[in-house]
Structures are given as C-alpha cells and as structure tokens.
C-alpha cells in the first residue's frame, strides 16, 4: 500500500524512529506499527515532513484472541497517491491512545466513534463523548465479546434455519428482558443518561463586549425531527439573537451498527447491506465494497463489467447530485418546483436501474469479480437516449432555473465559507472539498476501476461557500454525463462476471482498504479477513459523517436560517452518517 515510501533501508520513517516504529509484518498486512507514546511525534513527522496532510480513516480493530485493540490510521497526501498506514496497539483493559485531533481536526468524529464502539480512550481529545450510543450505555458494541439483544450466533448462516428450520418470530421465543444482558449489580434507578447535559455544557455562550446590549444566549435544537435535516439529525445551537454562536451536531438516531451486522454477515451477504448505507448512491457503495474485497481475493472483473461499473457509478453520481441540488433548493424555500424538476431526471435513471438490477434503490448489483447480470435488451439505447439527448438539455434548463436566480444568490453567496486549509485538516472530501479549491478526487488521485481511460475534468471552485458547493455539483453532473457518454459508446461485448457465481467466497487473511469517490466524498472500506467465510473487521469510512466536522465552524456567525442551507450544501445522508 505504501509504495511512495520505500520499505528498504533508506526509509525516512524508520530512519527517524529507529526504536519505536516497526514495519507490520503479519501476513497480508502492511504499514507501520507505532508505539502509543510516539504516535503524536510520528503523525507530526508524517504531516509536516512528508506531506501526508490528509488523515482519511481512523478505526479500531478488536484482536480479541490476542487480547489487544489496534487503532488503524490511513493518511494520504492531498496532492494524490497511495496511503501510509500506521497502527498503534493497546491492551483491551483500559485501552488508551493519544488523540490526533490537535494535528488533524478530521480525527474528531472518528476517534469519538472508536471510543464509543471499541472503548478506546483517546487522551487529549477535546470532546470525547459517545457519538452513536448514549452516555451510560453498557459496553462497547464492536468489541467481539459484546452481544446484541436477540443474539443468535456469532456469524451467519445461523444453524437454526435449515434443515430443521421451524420458523418462529424471535420476540415470541425470546421476549424482551430475556435477551438483554445487564451488568452485574445493575439497578435501573441509578441509571444516568447525561448525554444532554454534556451536549449543552460543551456549547459556547455569547460573549458581549462592554457597552453593548446584553442578551441571554438561547439554546435551541434543530432536529432530530426537522424537515431541513434530511433525516434524523440534530443540531444543538446557542443563539445570540438570530446569530449562531456555537453549534454541535448530534447523530446516532439512525444507528443500527452496520459494522457489527457486517461482521456477522458472509462476504457476499454483506453486499445488499452496503446499498443501505447511503441510500441515494447505492452503486458507489457497492463499488467501494467490491473493490476492497477484490484487493484481497485478487479477482479481476472482465472488461464489460468494468465498463458497466463505471456507467452505473456515474449514473448514481448524477442521481445523487440531482437530489442534493433539489433538496438544497427546497431548503431555500422554493417549495418542490425545483426539486421535482431534478427528481424527474433522477426518476428516469432509477427506471434504468430497475430494468438492469431489479430494484430502483437497493440495487445489490456488484459482485466480487464483476456484476450480477448483463444489461437487458434495449437498456443501452435507453441510457444513450438519456445521456446524449435528455440530460444535457435538462441540466441546462435546471441551470437557467437556479443558477442565475437572484434570490438564491443572495441566500447562498458567501454563506458557510470553508477555507482549503480547514477543509484538508477536517478530512473533508468530495464536492465540499473541491468547492473550497482543492482539486482532490480519488478517481484521479488514486485511480480505481478503469477511470484512467476516460477523458473528464475534476471541477474545482474557489470560494468555498454554499453557492460554490451548488455549482460544483452542477459541474460534476456534466462531467459524469460525459463519462457515461464515453463509456456507453466504447463498451465491449463479453462476460460480466469472472468465474462462476459463488456464494461462499474465500478471502485470504489480511487487511485491505479500498476507497472510491462516492458522490458525497471519499467512501472507504477497511476490512480484515482471517480466512473465515465472514469478515473479522468491516469498517466504513463514511464521507457523510466526516464532512460534518467543520459544520460548526461554517455556521458560526451566520443566521439560523443559513444553518439549514449550509447543512443542505454539505449533502449528508443519515443512513451513512449513523450507520
């Protein structure tokens, strides 16, 4: 994985840290193992001397049999290239690792997640609270010895299903109370949930210089049930009059522990679950998971499948951006007219997905080493009709409808500015990053699939405000249309799946991090296999979650009505934020 730094003696990392950094020599693994006490020094060396300024993914792995927890970091250069992977290990009891938030602000949510789900305490983290579960929740769900209510077996397939599968509903056999393991000496009257107090305590209050009129700071909650949040997302904000003083995003309302479910599933059985992460860009999720597993199995998709993957992923991007633009216009108060114009085009693309995959949204189309099935008869012509005739015309129409509209300009220009430095340090990706003037796109930075073969631009805008984040999505729709046009004209004939369809996939032991440029940003999958039919660790680096890191900074000083459009311009889907 780390081709850019030689692992042989003139390795600058090993030369600089001769005693405390070693190369990870486990079979199938790569990168460096850093001792916790040198982690900060190592990370600052990596960032300041070697230019790895963009910390993409942080996650924990529970090596239960060896009684240790590992924290895995993937750092990239914002100019492109492959990752430097570094890990640090800590015993499972009192797991403590220094926090990297002072160096990379983007670590904030991911470290909170690792604390919440693995119980790894990050020393020096400014706001180490649980992020998905509530304060007072017993245990850390992603640890291998933690069991959920209605627990049946560690891994699927469950033995009770066949050949002696007498069907029952789990709640009849195992009613509530019998399926929950309470800690020893548990007394519900002593249960405290201080999540709320902690959220409000962390919010900054308005500061008034002497001589001005003093008003009270008002704390209000936007959400979790609020139409502007596009799901169950909550923002706790302090207001000075109408101006935002401070804001904290609160998530976890849609948390279902996707990663734990993923570790119970078989490798193939996990594919339909990835559709449900970001349910507006299903094919990209499929793509990311497929290439990550293919890195370990070595399966190589045939040519036609590669083209189909690109066509589907780019159509998904168009769908997603249309939805993002539509809802942004909706948030601005143009109730439904603009949104429905955008949805019309999305609808035609969903019709194509339905004809090819069988479902409009939950496609489950990719397999390791190809795709499920070829295009049915006549679908290629329909795709051509859409990308050559209809979309260019309709996007121009939408452009006329929105871009020049003075009300939208007044509302969006200069609102929620994100500087490039902030964006990189917050590990922001996707259109939000490129609207801030950083031309970083995984399709170019570390090409996957057959993206090198297509001629397309990476659109960049330089103001970093809400209006630019809207414009960049318009640009990307045009570029994606262009990619699909090239792909449908040059798609070869042939098989679409390497080898026979297999429901048990042999994945060799090892780790793998695959990433794709999803419509919302860099969608990464980190998997660890131990050679069994189920993943040992399955982690999703969710762009929707990490892009929220600079939300408070973007909102400060703006009016409360602007929060709605700033959030709309980040474009999150809660299925992916909360997982």
């Amino acid at each position: 994985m780390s081709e850019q730094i030689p692992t042989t003696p003139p390795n600058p990392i090993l030369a600089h840290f001769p005693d405390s950094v070693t190369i990870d020599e486990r079979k199938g693994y790569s990168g460096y193992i850093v001792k916790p006490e040198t982690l900060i020094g190592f990370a600052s060396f990596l960032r300041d001397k070697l230019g790895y300024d963009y910390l993409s993914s942080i996650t924990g792995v529970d090596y239960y049999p060896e009684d240790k927890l590992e924290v895995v970091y993937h750092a990239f250069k914002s100019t492109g290239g492959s990752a430097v992977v570094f890990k640090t290990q800590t015993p499972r009891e009192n797991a403590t690792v220094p926090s990297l938030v002072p160096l990379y602000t983007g670590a904030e949510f991911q470290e909170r997640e690792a604390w919440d789900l693995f119980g790894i305490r990050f020393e020096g983290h400014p706001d180490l609270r649980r992020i998905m579960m509530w304060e007072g929740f017993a245990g850390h769900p992603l640890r291998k010895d933690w069991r959920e209510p209605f627990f049946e077996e560690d891994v699927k397939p469950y033995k009770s299903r066949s050949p002696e599968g007498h069907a029952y509903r789990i709640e009849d056999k195992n009613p509530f109370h019998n399926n929950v393991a309470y800690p020893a000496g548990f007394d519900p009257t002593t249960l405290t949930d201080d999540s709320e107090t902690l959220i409000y305590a962390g919010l900054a209050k308005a500061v008034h210089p002497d001589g001005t009129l003093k008003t009270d700071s008002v704390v209000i909650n936007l959400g979790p049930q609020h139409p502007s949040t596009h799901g169950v997302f909550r923002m706790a904000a302090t207001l000075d009059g109408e101006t935002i003083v401070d804001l904290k995003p609160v998530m976890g309302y849609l948390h279902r522990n996707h990663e734990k479910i993923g570790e119970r599933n078989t490798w193939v059985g996990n594919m339909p679950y990835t559709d449900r992460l970001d349910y507006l860009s299903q094919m990209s999720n499929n793509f990311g998971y497929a290439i990550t597993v293919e890195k370990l199995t070595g399966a190589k998709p045939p040519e036609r499948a590669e083209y189909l993957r690109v066509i589907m992923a780019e159509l998904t991007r168009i769908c997603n951006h249309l939805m993002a633009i539509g809802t942004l216009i909706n948030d601005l108060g143009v109730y439904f007219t603009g949104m429905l114009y955008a949805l019309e085009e999305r609808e035609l693309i969903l019709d194509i997905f339905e004809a090819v995959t069988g479902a409009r949204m939950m496609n489950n189309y990719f397999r390791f080493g190809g795709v499920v099935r070829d295009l049915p008869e006549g679908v290629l012509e329909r795709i051509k009709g859409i990308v050559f005739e209809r979309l260019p015309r309709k996007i121009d129409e939408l452009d006329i409808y929105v871009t020049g509209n003075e009300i939208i300009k007044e509302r969006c220009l200069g609102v929620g500015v994100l500087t490039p430095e902030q964006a990189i340090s917050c590990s922001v990706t996707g259109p939000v990053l490129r609207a801030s003037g950083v031309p970083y796109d995984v399709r170019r930075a570390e090409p996957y699939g057959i993206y090198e073969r297509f001629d397309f631009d990476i659109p960049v805008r330089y103001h970093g405000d809400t209006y630019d984040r809207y414009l960049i999505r318009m640009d990307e729709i045009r570029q994606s249309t262009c990619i699909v046009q090239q792909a449908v004209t040059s798609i070869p004939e042939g098989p679409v799946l390497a080898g026979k369809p297999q429901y048990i996939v042999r994945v060799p032991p090892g780790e793998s991090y695959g990433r794709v440029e999803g419509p919302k940003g860099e969608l990464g999958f980190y998997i660890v296999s131990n050679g069994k039919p189920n993943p040992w660790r399955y982690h999703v680096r969710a762009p929707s979650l990490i892009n929220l890191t600079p939300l408070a900074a973007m909102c400060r000083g703006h009016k409360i009505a602007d929060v709605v459009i700033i959030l709309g311009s980040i474009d999150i889907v809660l299925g992916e934020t909360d997982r």
Partner: protein
Amino acid sequence: MYGFGIVKSLFLALKHFFITYWDDLKFGRKRYKTQEGIAHRSSKDARGIFTIQYPEEKLPSPEEFRFTPFLLYEEGPNGEKSERCTSCGICAKVCPPQCIWIVRSMDPVTGKPIPAPAEFYIDVDICMNCGSCAEYCPFDAIKMDHDYELAVYDRRYTLYDKAKLLKPVSYYASIRPTNYEQEEKARKEAEAAKAAAKAAKAAPSA
C-alpha cells in the same frame, strides 16, 4: 439587470405548466391510463406532467424487477404439483437477513432425508428483497416475484408458508419470459449432454 434571473426562472415554470396542457391536447385521451401514454410519460421524450397516477395507472414492471421470493412447481398433465425445491438449503445459507426457514422431508419408512421440503417459510417482514436466493439456487426453484401489493391487516400473515409461496412455472414464464427461455434452453442442453454422456458410457459395455 437585477431580477432578470427570477423572471427567467418563473418563465421556465410557466413553460412547464403550459407544456402539460399542450401535450394533453396533442395526445388526447390516450395520454392517460393507457400503456402507450404511460410509456411515453416515462420515456426520455416526456415533457410536462410526469407523474403516474397510482393506483389508476401502474408503471409496468421490467422483467428483472424483484420483490419477494416465491417457490416454483411444475404442473403435471393431471394437475398434480411437483416442487422443484430439493431443500438443499443454499437459499437459507445465502439469505443475508436469514429470513428463510426450511424443514427437510424425511422418509417415514426409512427415516432418511428425501430431497423435498416438508416446510418452507419466508418471513417477508425481514426479507430485504436482495434476490440472492434466486441468484444462487442451483435448481431454479426459487425466484423473485413481481407482485408488490402485499399489504395485510395483521403481522401474522407476513410469515409465508409453503402453500402461500408455491406458484406454477407458467406464472414464472409469464412474468420473466426471457429468463425463463434462457433457463429452459440451458436445462435442455444439460439434459442432452447428460444423455449423450450416458449413451457414450453405455455404448462400450454393450
């Protein structure tokens, strides 16, 4: 000029409004509630109104459309049913949410298993409509249905048993003609190859 952008936006919305009625006049009655009208309104040439007025109108389901799984049986000449399922349990193994339950048949005399399901349950509440069972079934015995109107008054009706799941092969051939033809062709070829192999094996000894 300031405000011109708004005027352009409003003009565009007005255009959409008029086009709807213009196309109504142009196509007349066949624009609504006919297959032709629905097909046109969901094609790349659609203008104006886009909505399909469910349930009066329904979008035709494409062949690959999948909803819940069902089991296939062959119809004999005298109306007897022979199930294709051999209760091998592959569908229950691949099912990601584990909603398939199979009880294998036992021969009452010898007590040995026979390749047919005694019971077959699918909990359609849990089913995620992924189509893996149909994809990996080696006997083409389980397929995905097109029927999406499954609303019932009580949750106990959503646990489908074998009687509810079994549908004839002719129904399958009517909803998925292309797939059916391909499978029949592959089956005939496989049978022919098997017969040829048997004949080749039998020939030297005879």
